[in-house]
């Protein structure tokens, strides 16, 4: 379904997709996982709001889970974390643990 939507919009890509392997889900080939690149607008290295690049993955994933459940108090991160599943949070955590955009 996802592919079908794209096929209509991007003819060149649809033709490509026939020749090349389809995109797997999740972070692959070093690409940032869904949502990850939005984070650094606030959480860049040197930022006042909790830099996350290089933090241990379990720490980031646990923070996201607690924001999502409401266990950890927050102003906006509770609203944002609810937009990500546990698996997506884990992928984002792994990406930043490896250095994020600064890998």
């Amino acid at each position, binding site marked *: 379904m996802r592919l079908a*939507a794209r096929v209509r919009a991007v003819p060149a*890509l649809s033709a490509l*997709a026939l020749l*090349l392997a389809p995109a797997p889900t999740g972070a692959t080939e070093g*690409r940032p996982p*869904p949502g990850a690149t*939005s984070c650094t607008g606030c959480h860049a290295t040197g930022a006042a709001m909790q830099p996350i690049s290089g933090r241990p993955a379990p720490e980031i994933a646990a923070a996201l889970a607690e924001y999502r459940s409401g266990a950890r108090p927050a102003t*906006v991160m509770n609203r944002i974390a609810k*937009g*990500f599943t546990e698996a997506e949070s884990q992928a984002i955590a792994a990406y930043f643990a490896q250095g994020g955009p600064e890998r």
Partner: protein
Amino acid sequence: MSRRLVQTRRSLLGNAASAALALAGPGLARPALAGTAPRVVVIGGGFGGATAARALRQGGVDVTLVEASGTYVSCPFSNEVIVGLQPLSAQRFGYDNLTRTGLTRVQANATGVDPSGRRVTLADGTTLPYDRLVLSPGIDLRLDAVPGYGAEAVAAMPHAWKAGEQTALLARQLEAMPEGGTVVLSAPANPYRCPPGPYERASLIAHFLKTRKPRAKLILLDAKDTFSKQRLFQSAWAALYPDQLEYVPLASGGQVTAVEPAAMTVRTDFSEYKADVACIIPPQRAGRIAAIAGAADRSGWCPIDPVTFESKLVPGIHVIGDAAIAGAMPKSAFSANAQAKVCAQAVIDLLAGRAPEEPKLINTCYSLVAPGYGISIAGVFHPVNGLLADVEGAGGISPVDAPASVREQEAVYAADWYRTITREVFG
């Protein structure tokens, strides 16, 4: 792969796809056919374009950034400049650090795009070939939409919706306004740049009047009945500015039907307002180059594929930021920055012959209703039926009943966000 084969495929796939196939592998910096690496041109060096250019460069792409101005003047926090809470100098950003990433910066106005020849034309006639083009031209103000509000009117009744001289002008006018004066501020119908922006501006002008000219009044005329963070703004106005701010929604005649800059009058269907200071925020459309490229539809904005940000009208051209129709995502600097990074990855993927992955994007917009009193709206977005839609259950506004400490914390975060994002974008 022989040149002949590439050309056969070129007719089948279109330029960019064949350029991708011509590459030996994912390493983009590697010379392709006839020794040329794929070239991406980015038009617009604002929050969207500067971010995209940097991300593409980091991905090893040969990038040319075309920006008309030598210095960017940022809109976020320009409402603070208008009421003297921040100097205009804090809005200015140069391009030196961005240029140091190894991209080519061209300071020029892009005046033409030839989508079939894949070339951009600059004002001096120079042409720049591209494999893919990214447009982040921001907005144009529709100076034909409000009768009387043409190009000359903006000097008397500033919009200050593009930061710079207009911002400074509105600040001077407010400062010089007589003690018991009247400010009229008008907000347009959707869609427009920065949905909560007019209400933040109204709040901060009301704060300025309350502290500096307590007998003066602000009339906020709105071409709609509902707006972003409405409950938060309206409860703050009731608490802080009951004597300063009068809100006139569409249903009560808030739509401006005409202005007369010489007489400083603002007309609606119901009344005529005599203003000492008038700030008219007119309707908008995508920056002109988007229409020139054929990427804007009849609404004046650009329909895009939500996975790649490629134009639904012109293949090979991607549109991000305010100019794009991004579904539920608001026209904000935060959105433009998030979209730019997703778009850059999609462009890198397409050039390398890989299918881009389905993205998720975040937006958070802070507004100040007074110094030390911040509120926010956040959202998480993903492609649904060809548009970017809210991820259900996520996002929303700050709690309506939050204590003062939360408002203070959000005001601090607002300033932190501005510092961080401008550093990420302009380095």
